[in-house]
């Protein structure tokens, strides 16, 4: 694939976001990662917003990294909207959350999550996650057709 490898990171915790951006910066030089600090911004980015009518970035990312616990519009709602909206529903969504709870895992997969990752506890863990996500989802994985 050519062009920048774009990832939309949906993460409300500033520190987690910074750690992830650092980790992806180290492992994905030249890649482009866009941060949505809450669920509404994420939906606006992906689905457009008539009221704003100025989508932050044109075109869709290759991958969405989604935290589940978000203020306002929850990660589950974002996931559900993505997976039920024509045009974006094939977009791979990787859940990245601190919860390992059975009920969260069940609901996330039921709603169509493509993968479920638990946030690591160390920066080394973040680097490993960033490397693995990049390798699997942006390199090995063959992207779905755009409709």
């Amino acid at each position: 694939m050519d062009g920048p490898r774009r990832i939309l990171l949906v993460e409300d915790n500033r520190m987690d976001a910074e750690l992830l951006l650092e980790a992806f910066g180290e492992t994905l030089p030249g890649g482009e990662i866009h941060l949505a600090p809450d669920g509404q911004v994420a939906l606006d980015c992906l689905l457009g917003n008539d009221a704003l009518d100025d989508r932050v970035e044109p075109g869709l990312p290759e991958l969405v990294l989604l935290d589940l616990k978000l203020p306002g519009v929850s990660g589950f709602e974002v996931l559900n909207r993505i997976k039920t909206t024509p045009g974006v529903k094939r977009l791979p969504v990787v859940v990245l959350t601190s919860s390992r709870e059975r009920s969260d895992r069940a609901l996330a997969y039921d709603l169509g999550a493509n993968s479920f990752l638990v946030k690591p506890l160390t920066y080394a863990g973040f680097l490993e996650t960033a490397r693995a996500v990049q390798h699997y989802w942006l390199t090995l994985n063959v992207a779905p057709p755009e409709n």
Partner: protein
Amino acid sequence: MGWTGLETDDRVSVLLVDDQDENLLALETVLAGPGLKLVKASSGIQALKCLLDEDFAVALLDVRMPDIDGFETAALMRERDRSRNTPIIFITALSTAETHVSRGYSLGAVDYIFKPIVPEVLRAKVQVFAELFRKTRQVERLNESLRQRTRELEAANRDLESFSYSVSHDLRAPLRAIAGFADIISRRYRDALSEEARHYFDNIVEASERMGQLIEDLLAYARLGRQALRRRRVSLYELIAQIAADLAPRLAETGGQVSLSPNLPTVHGDPTLLGEIFTNLIGNALTYSRPGVPPQVSVTCEVGLDWVTVQVRDNGIGIPPEHQERIFEVFQRLQSESSHPGTGIGLAIARKSAAMMDGRVWVQSVVGEGSTFSVTLPRHAREMILAAREGREPWTDRVASS
């Protein structure tokens, strides 16, 4: 069986049913006293009305009454939930006794009193039922308060579990930041730090790792109670053999050996919880070994009619008697973090897991010789039937070792 000292609350009601006022009055006179509340009804219909909104220790029914007689009243009482089990004493003339008695018993009469009434007999019979009723009511009240208490405890337990779950959950986010940014600094700027600063820095990293481990363990403990029990048929032999196999690297490291008794049975339990129990017990048996003495762990069992006890025995350092209860509590340990790393949650998890399956874990130990941790689990009727139907399981003696 005295009348004195009864609180009004302890009074029990007795229903007197007779169409003749003078008969009611006679019954009332004989039975009057502080322990009984006498309720009079002058017809079967009126009696049934009374029975709708009150529980009676006993109903005294005159057999011969106009409209519906005593037997019909009894039959109607038996059709209603509230009065289905109310004892009935029929009052009947001696002359008609024989025919009445058999019919009355078929309606569930408990007793008879023949006219003319002998006051002592009447009083004695009614007292027996009053006492029975009082006792039953006491037991019911106790039961109810017990149920209430259980409900309260369960609610408190759930609160505590969800509290510790969300606490340990929310603690992870700031910890991730502390550990994460500390790590970035030590990766990128380590050389720029003085030796002293590096030392302090390493302390921060080490402490945050330790805290991470504590939180993970606390979370695992809290998570236990939040998940529904999922019982399956679990072969303890296979489960424990697998655990021993997973411990192979540690066995190799220590020169240790785990031997399993071939008669470890199949139980009906939650495989995850059973795994937690034996992983912790066998892991501890390897960890707390005597210096220079390779750990020998044997897993044996005793099978009773409706229970099974599995023993995990080691030849390790042992546990002083005064600490044998304490070690089952969260974060309680006897060794220092530097000599034997650990968080002190393992046995708490083992005990809670066993309790969730209505079982228990305890220890017998001699310092300097070794410890035996025992896990008793109830066996359920279903699994006993299955075991009997299948005959003996054809286990062979296998030894997992380095």
